[in-house]
């Protein structure tokens, strides 16, 4: 249903930089459609990231985040084989989880 995220990792000296692209329309709820009516808000509201199952970051997003959102953050104390997982959930209840292994 939801399309996969694209997650890229760069690890150096125990710090892993995580770059994520998510596939989502992110309708701001401000824009008028072709019919002149406001296109209803449709956005990712919650994002969370885990390292080996432990939550390291959570986020709340509004309609002001761009379409096909990009997010970058860096996790300390990582080692090869660690599992980094990302989850988003939108205001329609759709969600998506993808995970990658630190190399």
């Amino acid at each position, binding site marked *: 249903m939801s*399309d*996969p995220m*694209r997650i*890229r990792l760069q690890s150096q000296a125990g710090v892993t930089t995580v*770059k994520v*692209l*998510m*596939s989502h*329309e992110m309708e701001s709820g401000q824009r008028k459609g072709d019919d002149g009516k406001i296109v209803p808000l449709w956005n990712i509201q919650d994002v969370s990231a885990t390292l080996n199952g432990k939550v390291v970051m959570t986020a709340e997003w509004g309609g002001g985040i761009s*379409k*096909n959102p*990009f997010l*970058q953050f860096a996790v300390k104390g990582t080692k090869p084989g660690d599992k980094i997982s990302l989850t988003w959930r939108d205001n329609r209840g759709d969600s998506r989880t993808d995970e990658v292994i630190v190399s």
Partner: protein
Amino acid sequence: MYPTNTGSIRSTYKDAVLSIILVALVGIAKAQSGSLEGLTSTANVQKSEQSAEQSTEKAIAQYRQMLQEANPADLYVIKGESLWNSARGPKRRSLASCDLGLGPGVVKGAWAQMPRYFEDTQRVQDLESRILFCMQDIQGFNSVDLVAQDFNTPERLNISLLAVYVASESEGVPFNVPMSLPQEKEMYKIGKKLFFLRAGTHDFSCSTCHSETGRRIRLQDLPNLTTQDGAGGAYGSWPAYRISTGSIWTMQQRLSDCFRQQRFPKPIFASPATIALSVYMGFNANGSEASAPGLKR
């Protein structure tokens, strides 16, 4: 007043004759405007403009570079790849046996040698028209219906996804668009002719904006498509993710919207003229590396 093509004249016989025409044109322009240009003292104004222009361009370059780090087009490449391998259409088959010019099923590097002549269709085809052919031939889609549709219908969007996937498999490969067959040469000539065709309410042609280096429209740099660098950078970066539409545009869609803004009638999807223009740009790009999917305003 306006830049002319005088900079590109070579001293061959035919060009010498041509230069007479151009000199005449410039001469006419100067004779008419010269006295008024004399009234101006714009040297200082121009100097300060230049630095303002440079800082604006630097800032825009910074904006683009930041986005280039993670191109949303990558999300569509993933979708395109899965479409390519999915059994679809009336025949429930995948495109795995589609011949893009390097043999059935070879995707890697195929786009860098397109458009090209295909024996089975006996015509020169670009990326999208070849995908369209495979969709009809292998999967049983009705290409006539697909051609008649808009870019934003579901199955036409699928063509864009397939195109961005195929093109991405040539990233970093130097263009080597073939030009040995008479059919290919013919298409090049027609494409070039179309490129210079001035018409419509505004007297525009492709060359109005794309035959000089270093110009821009509003803040957009305009590639000079008559040069290898310009054609390589431009032709080589479509299909691309367009920020303004939040979607993938293929070269066919790029051309269509250029023609719209040229105030021309609407080019038919995958029509000979659109392919001919891609032959012109693709061959001019030869030697440059393919960089699609690009990221555009």
